[in-house]
């Protein structure tokens, strides 16, 4: 654990990569990322739009006092937390299997995890639409085994959105948990075993506590990605489910209220920055302890 942190902080530039290469990336990020964000922060105040000009505070007030919008903020966070928790529940056993039992198949498992990430997120989401459609594979199957009498409307609701998001995000959870699990010395588990702990107790008292850092990292990554996800929710949530990104999209394309959209994206950004700060704290704490 300690080693990992140390490796992380002391990782210098290897001979292969010249420090100047960073400059290209940095320039790209400044032009296409930092400047737009700064611009956006100012937008709330200045952009002249079709809507009436109002001070910035009006939009934040509206977002945090109007029950409708407040509900959307709460829904966004709830959805993200829910998706993240499901990702942990599904991802942890997979990570454990990958590290402890896959053996020479671990390469294959990692490939299976990462391969979906190589296809477009839109393709994957449409895949779910095909499966979940009124006369899709799932309904056909359930009808065929007589489990249901008429097709269930899976689509356009929270269920399909959550399934879609989990599908997209679970690899991130698996990989961050697996990397920490892999760093746990097997002799720690053997020590617990010889001291009288059953397999389950060993997992509970040694393996799991030592893998909490991986869960923490995975939580933050998945939470952030879920928070900002848009395409999946648009295609699978079908308007039933409203989250901040969808609302921002709506404000831009339908209401043309750019200022309100900017205010909302700033809130989203603040949540993200807050999470990253938490993560930094987590790493710092580990660093001090090590």
């Amino acid at each position, binding site marked *: 654990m300690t080693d990992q942190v140390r490796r992380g902080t002391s990782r210098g530039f290897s001979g292969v990569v010249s420090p100047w290469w960073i400059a290209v990336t940095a320039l790209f990020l400044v032009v296409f990322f930092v400047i737009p964000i700064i611009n956006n922060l100012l937008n709330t105040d200045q952009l002249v739009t079709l809507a009436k000009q109002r001070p910035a505070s009006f939009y934040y007030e509206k977002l945090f006092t109007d029950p409708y919008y407040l509900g959307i903020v709460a829904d966004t966070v709830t959805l993200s937390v829910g998706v993240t928790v499901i990702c942990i529940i599904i991802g942890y056993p997979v990570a454990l299997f990958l590290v402890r039992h896959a053996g020479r198949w671990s390469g294959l498992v990692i490939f299976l995890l990462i391969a979906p990430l190589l296809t477009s997120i839109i393709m994957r989401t449409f895949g779910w639409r095909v499966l979940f459609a009124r006369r899709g594979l799932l309904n056909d199957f359930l009808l065929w085994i007589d489990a249901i009498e008429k097709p269930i409307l899976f689509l356009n609701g929270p269920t399909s959105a959550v399934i879609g998001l989990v599908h997209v995000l679970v690899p991130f959870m698996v990989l961050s948990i697996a990397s920490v699990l892999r760093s746990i010395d097997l*002799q*720690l588990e053997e*020590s617990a*075993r*010889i*001291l*009288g*702990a059953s397999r389950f107790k060993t997992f509970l008292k*040694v393996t799991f506590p030592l893998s909490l850092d991986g869960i923490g990292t995975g939580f933050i990554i998945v939470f952030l990605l879920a928070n900002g996800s848009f395409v999946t929710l648009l295609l699978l949530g079908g308007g039933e489910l409203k989250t901040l990104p969808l609302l921002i999209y709506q404000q831009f394309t339908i209401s043309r209220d750019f200022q309100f959209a900017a205010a909302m994206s700033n809130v989203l950004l603040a949540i993200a920055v807050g999470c990253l700060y938490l993560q930094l704290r987590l790493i710092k704490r580990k660093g001090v*302890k090590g």
Partner: protein
Amino acid sequence: MSSNNNTDRQSLELVLRGISKRFGDVVALEPSDLVVKPGVLLSLLGPSGCGKTTTLRVIAGFEAADTGSVLIGGKDVTLLPPNKRGLGMVFQNYSLFPHMTVADNVAFGLRMEKASEQEIKRRVGEMLDLVQLPGVEKRFPNQLSGGQQQRIALARSLVTNPSVLLLDEPLGALDKNLRETMQFELRRIQNTLGITTILVTHDQEEALTLSDQVVVMDQGRFQQIGTPSEVYESPETRFVSEFLGTSNLLSGDISAPTDSDDRKVTLQYGEVKTVIESPGAPSIPAGPATIAIRPEKIVLSKRSPEMRNVLQGIVKGHVFRGSYHAYEISVAGRDDPIFVYDQAGERSTDAVHPIGSGVYLTWKRENSVVLRD
């Protein structure tokens, strides 16, 4: 499992019967037998990769043996998982739980036995006293030095009163001084508790000074089992003799076994033919054989002594080593020099036998041993 009888758990006898283990094509352990009497400290000594750790892991239950059985106190535990064997184990890298305090580390085994918190507190205190580290309960393992971590690991493994203690190179990661202190410490604790102990090491000195019994291992085979002085003074095989230090090895032809203990070995160095006598195991057949003589058992003299085992040579080198003179002597017709440590009481640092002078080498017949290959 056994919850309250732990405090009076006896140290037990450990028996290995025909245990073997292979990993794919690698034979880590040939079928082997071993009996460790209660309270005995036995060392497994051998070069890297000879199967010491494998033996220990089979005893602990981390590796399933391919053949044979493990008996602890007469009870067959071959099929029991590690947590049901009632053993203690210390690993080379301490392996303390980094997320627990020292107290929680030491208490781990007791918690698994569901001991009461009161009992735990008492036992943890006792153990920390035993390893002479009282007052570190609240610290985390990474706030301790290597030697302290090692002591805590020992305390943790002893707290449940295991019937057998397994130590896999417990002192390997310590520097030389600390290592020696800890060797004495280990022996003291082992004596105090009278616990049957198996110590894995590849350090000859550690094995010889620390243990009641030594098993010398090579290539998955127990080459020799005996007390430290037995394996040191009378190695049975060439490997044991070479592994336990600089023995002079003389190769020749051994005569057929007779009723008496004596065996005659004919050495053929060029033109010179010498017949020497040695007590030999009757099991060794007539034919080519090697005998070993320790350098400190050879006596040098200027005139031909009135003894039977005599070789003639010329002094090629000399070093004074503080308590003895080390000579390097070449014998006509023999490629390797013969080493002789002369403990002669003279105060002088000068050689009694100057370089270039002729000397006679002689030894008592019981000081040479015939080796199996």
